[in-house]
Each structure stands twice: as structure tokens, then as C-alpha cells.
């Protein structure tokens, strides 16, 4: 009995750690897949340099952000919308061979995954530097927007505007 008393904390810690880490891994898997899926949606959401206009750009950004949430809802177990911080950026990427410029969507998501299991949560929680009983997971994906490339030019095209946070 005395031995068990000695072993029990470590044992429970290990068991709980396995459970909590398993949950975190599944959430991370869902997050990565959701972000990739949203990136693919962004690839088919055909925008071009004319879309940088201020009258439509915020709604384009919002549409992709919403898409990240929609994809995660069916992939992350116990998904909480408030825990998601999606970041959408677009940039021009030049093809090294042809010199064409492609618009590339960069989708990044931070998800503050809630920690359920006692004891281990206290340790895991601190690994991301913030004590909030949540572990911040992150995933990002880049995909080229399905649109004709800009012709090669000595002057790079004007950078896409920043999406509002």
C-alpha cells in the first residue's frame, strides 16, 4: 500500500498525460486538416489584383476566415469558436522559371485548446507560456489562388493589403 501511495501520483500523471496528449493530438490533427481544407477553399475563391479594392477586400478576408471556422467545427472535437484566431494573408510569389507572379493565400490558425484533465493540465498549460488552462495549437497552410498569373515584370506587383484582424 505504501508502495502504491508512492507510485500512484506518477501513475495517474502518466495515464492522465496519455489521455490529455491524445486529445491534444486529435485537436491538432483536426486543426491542421481544417486549415488545409480552408486553404483549398481559398484557392478556389478566385480573387485577383482587382480584388485589393477596399470595397471588397475586407469581405474577402472575412469569407476565408469564416471558412476556417466552418471547417474546424466538424473536425475538432469540442470545437469552441471563441478559441479560434484565424489569420489570413495573401502575397505574390514569383515563379522562378517563368517569372510569373502568383497570388498565394496563407492561412494560419491559432486554437486555444481547452485542457480537461487535472494535474497534467497544469504542466501542459505552461508550455505555451500563458497560464489560462488552455494550450495554444497552431497550424498554417499556403495554397496558390486559382487564377491566371500576372505576367513577368521587373517591378513586382503591388502587395495585397493586410486583412483586418
Amino acid at each position, binding site marked *: 500500500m505504501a*508502495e502504491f501511495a508512492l507510485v500512484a501520483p506518477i501513475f495517474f500523471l502518466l495515464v492522465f498525460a496519455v*489521455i490529455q496528449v491524445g486529445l491534444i493530438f486529435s485537436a491538432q490533427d483536426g486543426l491542421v486538416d481544417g486549415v488545409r481544407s480552408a486553404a483549398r477553399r481559398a484557392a478556389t475563391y478566385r480573387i485577383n489584383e482587382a480584388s485589393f*479594392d477596399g470595397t471588397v477586400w475586407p469581405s474577402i478576408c472575412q469569407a476565408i476566415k469564416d471558412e476556417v471556422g466552418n471547417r474546424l467545427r466538424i473536425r475538432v472535437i469540442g470545437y469552441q469558436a471563441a478559441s479560434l484566431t484565424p489569420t489570413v494573408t495573401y502575397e505574390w510569389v514569383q515563379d522562378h522559371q517563368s517569372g510569373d507572379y502568383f497570388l498565394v493565400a496563407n492561412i494560419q490558425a491559432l486554437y486555444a485548446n481547452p485542457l480537461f484533465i487535472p494535474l497534467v493540465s497544469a504542466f501542459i498549460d505552461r508550455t505555451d507560456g500563458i497560464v489560462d488552462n488552455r494550450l495554444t495549437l497552431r497550424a498554417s497552410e499556403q495554397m496558390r489562388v486559382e487564377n491566371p498569373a500576372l505576367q513577368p515584370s521587373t517591378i513586382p506587383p503591388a502587395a495585397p493589403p493586410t486583412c483586418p484582424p
Partner: protein
Amino acid sequence: MSRDELQRLQPASRGQVLVLFAMFLLILLGVSALAIDYANWLLTDRYLQNVADHAALSGASEFRQRQTQGSCTGGSGQQKCVEARAQMWTSINDDLHLGMTTTTINCLASVGPTVPGSNPGDSPAAGETSSARATTGACTSELPVQFGHTIWVATPPPTYAAYTGAGGRFASNFGVTFARVDRPVTSFIGGALGVRPGPRTGWATAGALPIGFALQTFCRNNIAPESGVCANSAGLTIDGQGGIRLLRGDIGSNESLKVTANGGQGVQTHNGDVFVVNGTCSSSSWNCPSGLGSLGGISDGYPNYTGKNAFYMAPMPVPRFASPLDVASVSTYDCSGASATSLCIPYKDQGNSTPGQPGTWTCQTSGSINRCGAPTVTSGQVTCVGQGGGLPPLHYYPVGPSLNGVNADSAHPQTNANKFKNIDDDFLVPDPDTTNPPGNPPADYLYTDDINVTGGGGPQMTSFIVNLAPSGPRLPGISTVRYTAFKTFGGARNNTGNPVTLQVKLLPGTGTTAIAVDSVQTLTDVPQRFEFTVGAGVIPANQFNTLRLQFTFTSQGGTTAAEERGGAIAWAEIQHPDPQPALTPMIPPGYYRSIDIPPNSCAILDPTAEYSSLEPYQMPGIYRFGGSSGKVELETGSYLIGDGVTLVFDSDWPDSGSHSGLTIAADAALVLNTMRVPGTPPCTPTETETLTTNESSPLSDLPFSGVCAAWGIDPDVTVGIRPGQNAWGYCDPANLVNPHCVNRDDYAPTGYRGVTFYFTPDPGWGTAHASMNISNRFEMQGGVGGLAFRGVLYAPYDDVTIQGGNGFNTVGQVLAWTAKFNGNGPFIDLDFPYVPASAAPYLLEPTITH
């Protein structure tokens, strides 16, 4: 008790952790399954998605010529679909390492059972687990290959659950490919717990699009300028029985689509698709998205009328077109102050030759003179035939202000140094100079300097040339030249000093060889009217628009400077026999408040003003309309025709309605830029100009569109303000040797996209439009007429509302804030002819959910 005894009394605790571990094992396994199996499934998802994307895109590359893609069940379209499916199978074969031969792939793409809603070559509803289908019929040479997956390949996407259950519905969208791959997955740990996952799925649709919008609306709730909602609560509203027939090009809307009449026609897409940003097909009145066109949905038109889907698109910003008014900064009645950089759109007023503001034009019918034309429609061509009385004003311009010391009289100083009008500067108000005998003193005149005789013996002379106003095509007949002249001293009437004679010659457009020469007249201080006739056939038929008069004043005798005298012309004209057929009423370009065509009449917008001439630095073909009380009204049965014109409306142009705005009454028609003016180079390479009347075709079967409007926009510029260009050269003074300034050969239609209607936005671009006054732009009141034009209708901040039962045919592009088609008339035809180029393949989904 000994320690041993004590130990025996204790309950055995060996194996305690093992028991606990067993208790937790289920949870541990579950969590591990979640982490490991779930990751595996998602990995499979991504892999299958890539396979499907790859396949769909490779198939869609066959449909680059989207405008020519026809049905997959016959004709040339069928072969394209077979090739697309073969491409998809090849892609899947490579990605999944299936090991099928080319023969097998080609057979799979072209043979097999036809399931309801699909085509030969499409995979069956249950999908395919082997290539067994390719061993039927003529394809018996190869052994079936087991896939290890379930695969669907179809074009267009099928109506069965393999597709509709997975995503959306594009059935009968020929030119759209569909590929789906299912793979059963194992559950390494979850299986021990009895979790049996379904197969993982990857699917994709792809097509070649979009190629250009025949109709695009920009209304969106969260975008300026509209402070509230769209005026029609939808970007595109079809309200009534008449639907839209999309002949070429796409429909794009930043808002939703709506059909609000029971049984109303929807959109028939012949070669094009429908795209919306906000998929609000939730309106119960919109049979969305897959309904038949006859039920208010989207269909593929004759001969199938099967349902189609709408696609999502990203929001599109309003394209900014430069306005003709950007370069036309001068508006006066005579273009004074205009220059090559500040072009002019002069005020026009039919009843006032010097209006201080835009005026009106109407073809007046009074007494026996009918200045209106008679509209005739034969086999789809609208012709406006003159009925007589529409004589052009006989208008004269001196060649140059300083030539041979020609001066204006002091009572009528000219503010514009480029020209003189005071041979006769007012043709509408009766002028005493034109009467016989002429008024004394004359009302106004043009005079020479006193002729210098001090240089030597013999007669000294001075002369100047005036261009005659173009008279248009005339039959050869006896023409009469009349002029009023007198003798001057220092510009004032005088009968003393050296005698002065005048000889008048009728010159052709170039050269100094006279067509006819009047006898020499001796001038006195009393204005006298002289005339001479020119025999039938003497004037060459091609010279009626370029005639000139040369006035040569000669000082007869005398050598004293004090005796030097000059001469003056108070008025002159040439009268030709009435043209046959009679001239049609021609409306010159300019700045109007209103144009009114009386019932059962017609008139022609004449871009180069061949019958009334243009001012220097005037923009040809630009008809500007402004004023809150303005109207362009075509009364019952009337026609207004114009080619090579652009109608520019100020931002204060009123809504259409009763006697305001742009109103087309029953059986009336506004036909613009659908053919071309007589004598212009063709808009299409196949057209040959043989007509002397202005014919226009409201039909949609025109093969191609050039500019054909006066104002063109550079279609290659997509960011910022698209620069514009006038398709006609303007009249600069260096060109004045040609009396009507703009030659019909000056039309340069290449490279630009013509704008037929330009509704000017409020000043500024972008957020400055928040206070935009949204206006309704058209009202049509039934009957068989309507609105037909070729070119762009640019009204990005206005509601284009086609009310009434008339037809509406456009070969070009409609850009509007919202568009509403309301009436019981026939189909509204939209056609975007500009981009015959290939369209790259794109992934299409997701679709509008339903």
C-alpha cells in the same frame, strides 16, 4: 507481532497498478485511437482530395473553349466530354497506380451503362471498383483491373447521390468535370473498440471559367455606396414572366438572385454560367439552384432545359471607367475656350443657336413640312426614312481668321479666334441679310482690309475662301449659289474711292480649279443680293460635302492710298435640289437636356454631324444629358437609332417615369450601335457598307463586337480607373480644311471596348459614393419595341430597371448596382462577345448550397 505477521495481516496490494491500468486501458485506447486513427483518416482525406483535384483539373483543360462547348450527348461536345473523361481516368490511373492500359481508359471514358441523369461514359451511380465496365461492348480486349477504391468520373457532374450527396449540383453544366475517389480505411486501434469508419472521400469539380460577365451587379449589403440594403433586396431580380437568355458570357452578382413571379422565367444559360457572392437562394420565390428555367431556376436552354447550378465567386469591386467628361471640360454653345486638352461637348438647343444651357431637340412637324422620319422595320432591320423638310442649315465658315486680312464687323466681335460665323451667324431667326433685297445696313458681315493699291499699277485683289456646310448625299440637279455683298472702307459701308468688283467661284474640296464661276459684280455701298446657277451634273456626286466658295475682291484702278477700298459679304448660301430620298432627321452630338421623339416618328443620332457640322475641339458621337428635369422620351411607336455614339448621363439624371428619365413607350425602340453609320469602316470584318440610310439590327445574331461606340474603354486595365478613348478623331483647327472636321474614316475601333451608356457616378470614386443616389434607369411600356444596343451599359452605381413588356437585347456588357427585369415580355437577351480566348481550368466548388 513480528513484522512477518504484520505483513500477512495487510491486504495484498501487489498488482494494484495493473488493475488500475486495465481500468484506464479503454480510455487510453480511445484517446490513442482518436490521435492515431483520426490522423490517418485526415491524411487519407487530403490524399484523396489531391487525387480528385488533379483529375478534375486535367479533365477541365479540355474545355478551354467554353463558348463552343455543347452538349455531352451529341455533336462535337460529346467528343470533348469523352476526351475530358479520358484525361480524368488517366490522372487517377497515374496517381493511384492502378495499372490500366490506354485502351481501357479510353473505353471507360466512352462506353458503359447510361444511368438516369448521366451520359455514356459516366460512372454509374454506385461508382466503380474495377474497370469491368470497359470490357463491355466493343472494348473486350483488356482484363478488368481491380481499383481498391471506388471511383466516379463524370462530365457534366451527375445528379445521383455520389455527387449531390457530397457537394452540390451542376448537372447539365457541360464543360464541368467531376471526379470522386473513395478509399476504405482501417482503424488500427479504434477497430478494437468496435469503431468502423466509413470510407474516406475526395471529390472535385472543375471547369473553365469565367470568361466575362454579360451582366454584373455590384450591390452588396456591406459595401458602399448603399447605406442600407439593395434596393431590390437582390442583385439581380427577375420579376415577371420574361426571363433572361444568356447567350454568351456569365452573370455575376455581388448579391443574390431572385425571381419573384410565380411561373416566371429564370435564367437560360446557353454559353455561360451564373455566379453569386452571397448564396441567398433561400428566397422561397427563387427556385434555386437547380430548377428549370421555366420554373424560375437556372437552366441550360434549348434543347434540354435541364437544371443548372450557380457558382460562388469572390466579391468583385466596381470597375472604374473613365468618363468622356474627364477630357471634355468645356461646355458652351460654340465650344469657345476648348483646346486639344480640354475638349468640348457643346450645349445644344434646337430652338436657340446660342443657348446658355443644354436645351431640347425634337423633330418638329408643322404644316406641310414633316421633319420627322418614318420608322420602318423590315426583316429585323430598323430604318429611319426621311419624309422631307429636313433640310440642313446652309452654314458657312471662313477658312482662317487671318487669311487675306478677313475681319469681323465691330458689331459682332468673335470670342473664338478659330472661326467666324458672321457671314450669317443665325439661321433660325430671320435675317435681313438673307432677304431680297437685303437689309441696309446689313445685320452682320465679314469684310476684307482695304485693298492695297500703292504697290504698283494694274488691278489689285484679295480673296478668301469659305467652306460650305456639308449637305449630305444629293442627287445631281441645278444648284443655286446666292450671296449678299457690298463695298467697304475700313470695314464700313462706303461708295467712294476706287471701284471694287467681286467674283465668286465654286470650288471643290481640294485644288483651285473652279466648278463654276459667277460673272464679275461691281459693288456699291448698298448691299446687293447676287445669284448664279450650277447646271445639273456639274458638281461631282462625291463633292457635295466638301464644296467651297472663293470670294475675290478686285480694286479696279487708282494708285492713291486714300482711295483704297475693300469689300464685304453679309450672307451666302448654296441651294441644292431636295435630296431623294428625303433626308432623315439627324441629331448632332452635344449636351442636351432632353430629346423627344413624337409618336410614330424616328430620328438618327448622327455622331459626326455630317448634316450639321461639328465645332472645333468638339467630341464627336458624345451625347450628354443632364438636368433633373431631363428626359429621353420615345413616344408610342417611335424609334431612335444611332451608331458610333455614346450616351453620357449626368449624375442628376432623373429616374425614369412619366415624362422624365429614359422612357421608351409602347412599340417604341431605342437601337444603338448595333450596325453602323453610313460610310463608316465596318465594326465587323464581314460587313460591307452599301446603304445610304442608317439601318440597325436589334437582333442578337451579330457575330462580333468592335467598339462601335464613340467612347471606348481599355479592357486590359483591371486596376484603378480604366482609361478611355474617343473612337472618333475630334475637329482640331488644323483639320478645318475639311468642313465637317471628322471624316467617317476617322473611326478607330480596335483595342477598346465600346461604352454605349455611361451613367456618371457621383464625383469621386470609392467610399465617396456613400451618398450615391440610386436611380432607376429605364422604363419601357410594352409593345413589340424595346432596347437593343451593342457595347457596355455602364451604370455601376445605379439600378438598371427594365420595366414593361418590351424586349431588351444587348450584345455587350451590363454593369449595374442592381438589375431588375420586370414585365411580361419575351426573353431578355444578354450576350458578351468580347473574349473568344480560351479560359483556363479552375476548381469550381463549393456551390450554392440548397
